[in-house]
């Protein structure tokens, strides 16, 4: 099955917040929703990046 587009609405956001112990009001959720959607849209652009052979950047030095 092909993956569908990632969606996010106020109730999904509320459920995700509650699952993490965040008690957010309707006004909080309404304010957050555009920010979360915008962030997801930017992250979704990484889907075109050629990452198959790329490991995460590790910055801590071993010594």
């Amino acid at each position, binding site marked *: 099955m092909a993956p569908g587009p990632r969606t996010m609405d106020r109730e999904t956001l509320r459920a995700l917040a509650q699952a993490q112990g965040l008690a957010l009001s309707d006004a909080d959720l309404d304010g957050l929703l555009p920010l979360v959607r915008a962030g997801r849209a*930017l992250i979704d652009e990484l889907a075109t*990046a050629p990452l198959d052979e790329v490991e*995460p*950047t590790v910055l801590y030095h071993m*010594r």
Partner: protein
Amino acid sequence: MADLVWASMGELARLVATKAVSPVEIVNAHLDRIAALDGTLKAYITVMTDSARSAARNAEARVMAREDLGPLHGVPVGLKDLYCTKGVKTTGGSRILGDWVPTEDATVVTRLAAAGAITLGKLNMHEFAYGPEGLNVHYGTAWNPWDWAAHRICGGSSSGSGAAVAAGLCPGALGSDTGGSIRIPSALCGLTGLKPTYGRVSRAGVLPLAWSLDHVGPMCRSAVDCALMLGAMAGHDPRDPSTSALPVPDYRAALTGEVKGLRIGLLRRFFLETAGPPQRLAVEQAVKTLEGLGASVRDVSLEQMKYAAGVAAAVISVESYAYHEAWLKTRGPEYGPDVRERLLAGAFVSGADYLKGQRARRLIRDEVDQVLGDVDVLIAPTVPIAATEVGVSEVEVDGRRAPVRPSLIRYTRPFNASGHPAASVPCGFTADGLPIGIQVVGRSFDEATVLRVADAYQRVTDWHTRRPPLGA
């Protein structure tokens, strides 16, 4: 007294070492100016009047006793208020830490003191460093000294550092840079600011925004002073495992004024071509100046820059949420509304997305390394727009409407993702008299070349010597 507040850090150190001026005079001159101007500018959150005067008297005694003096002996500095200072409030620009008094200094604070620097106070900033405008609802926003009456932003998050150094309220300051927070206020306030290579300067004792993207660095009025400050701070720190064990070169000695034969890569695509006309013109003129000094210039491009915004969205949001999670759950209303929303947004980014961002970072870093294999430095504008008035969310750039916030960080954040050293250097003014900055990016751990280019440019231009219209 006016001359002392506009003297460079190097000149102040020389005046102290030769007993021409006492550190007490220097500190008092700056404290007087802070008292006169900072009620308006709001650059400082905490002014350390008593401890600065006491340190100045001690510094004077050491001069008179002919003791060995550090390279910054008797020279005042300001610290962005996210550097831990033993016994002195460190607020992070927040109400949450409004009364927090650390029991230890940050490593860089200890190192600057060991070099002889005297801390004048703690500088204003965007709350918890999470904003490129430099706004602050808790302590008041620091106004840009170049047009404070119009309430223009300094840029952030190191807004107080930008305002203080530009206004002569300290000759040099520490900023921090997660997406451009040293370089943006440096550009908008007419300063020279350096984000060193990730791992060059310790982050121990510095309140984090995003551990893997945070950089510590100086904001001064010249490349020479940045070299002095960096030399005093850089090097491995056992308290910060991400710091490199590579030796620290003599940055001051690297400033030869010579750029003949230097190969410059000019970043047009994604950078120069999207900047406003005054910024584009000023950067092109600066490049011609460097060509005139013997550097060669060719166009280069960084195609992986298209992923920089996605990397930032994934990495900063998750790391900052991880640091703030407990406070968000228990003290949420104490955050400013803009910062609380940004932090909460990180709760909805998955672990897989975070690692996608960390993986894409490698594409950016590898490409910057590759391009810097063929040229010695990259050059771009620092910011595509000039300082806006507070509350302005969109500006016109070359006939297009551009949102202010993403515009401010567009050219700087790629080099947080890559970790390469990058400086902003004054290179002109808009028709309204607002500063413009050029960004110089170097190879990893080659801050010396970045500073050499900046210094060579400053030897033949006077943009960095101009002063804002503050009446003194």
